[in-house]
């Protein structure tokens, strides 16, 4: 019984360690997308400004 719990918690430990990394990678990817969009919008804005001048 105790052995089984010991084993389950070991599994939880590894799952937690990996989950943390996966969550961080996901935030990195979302930020990457957001930054890309922002650069695109700003470049468009600047191009429009150049044209209107």
């Amino acid at each position: 019984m105790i052995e089984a719990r010991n084993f389950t918690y070991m599994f939880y430990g590894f799952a937690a360690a990996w989950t943390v990394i996966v969550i961080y990678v996901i935030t990195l990817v979302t930020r990457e997308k957001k930054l890309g969009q922002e650069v695109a919008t700003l470049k468009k804005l600047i191009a429009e400004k150049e044209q209107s001048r």
Partner: protein
Amino acid sequence: MREKLLYGLGLAAMLYLVRNLYVIFLVLPDELAQGAIYRVFYFHLPGYFTAAICYLLAGIFSAMYLITRKWKWDSLAAAITEVGLPFAAMNLITGMIWGRIIWGIWWTWDPRLTSALISALIYAGYLMLRQAIPDPTERAKNSAVMAIFAFTSVIFTYKSNEWFRTQHPGPVLSIRTGGGTIDPQMEWMLAHNLLALLLLAGLLLAIRWRQEERQREIESLRREALSFS
């Protein structure tokens, strides 16, 4: 070129980590007193070391910024602090899960645990400070000063189980005890996993650093877009 290098680094880190998992689960035996649960230690300690190395480098990069005043160092310091935090979280969470089995409790207010948590809070505060300062020069300068102050908490954490009688186990690595406290095979495994996590951290740092530089680019583009309009 840089893209390919990053993919290569990512692949290498992944393969290494999978290889380590294989050895941890299928080759190494259970620990005598603790049974299977001791295996989280292979992430607990390397996770902390990775975080501590990130914090140390954040301090060094910050000092480099103050000396050279080059943006590169500021971006690097910001990126590596953020990369260190998930590893600190990994350390804290695996530690709690281990404590639940060995101590019977998730958390205890022991100097080691408390100071590790405080370090994470301080570095989270560093990231908040960065967000709160709009002017790039002032942001770089003030956060660099904070990073140097923040490192005192890392030293405190590292030394706390020497200074106090803690519930947290004492030093086990042979570089600190002179050997005899840990099976060499297990110590090797720790070194392997530390290397793997450092590789992973290096990859994350490269990605985060590029984002930080792009953020700077966005700030200057924004100034350009909003000027004279």
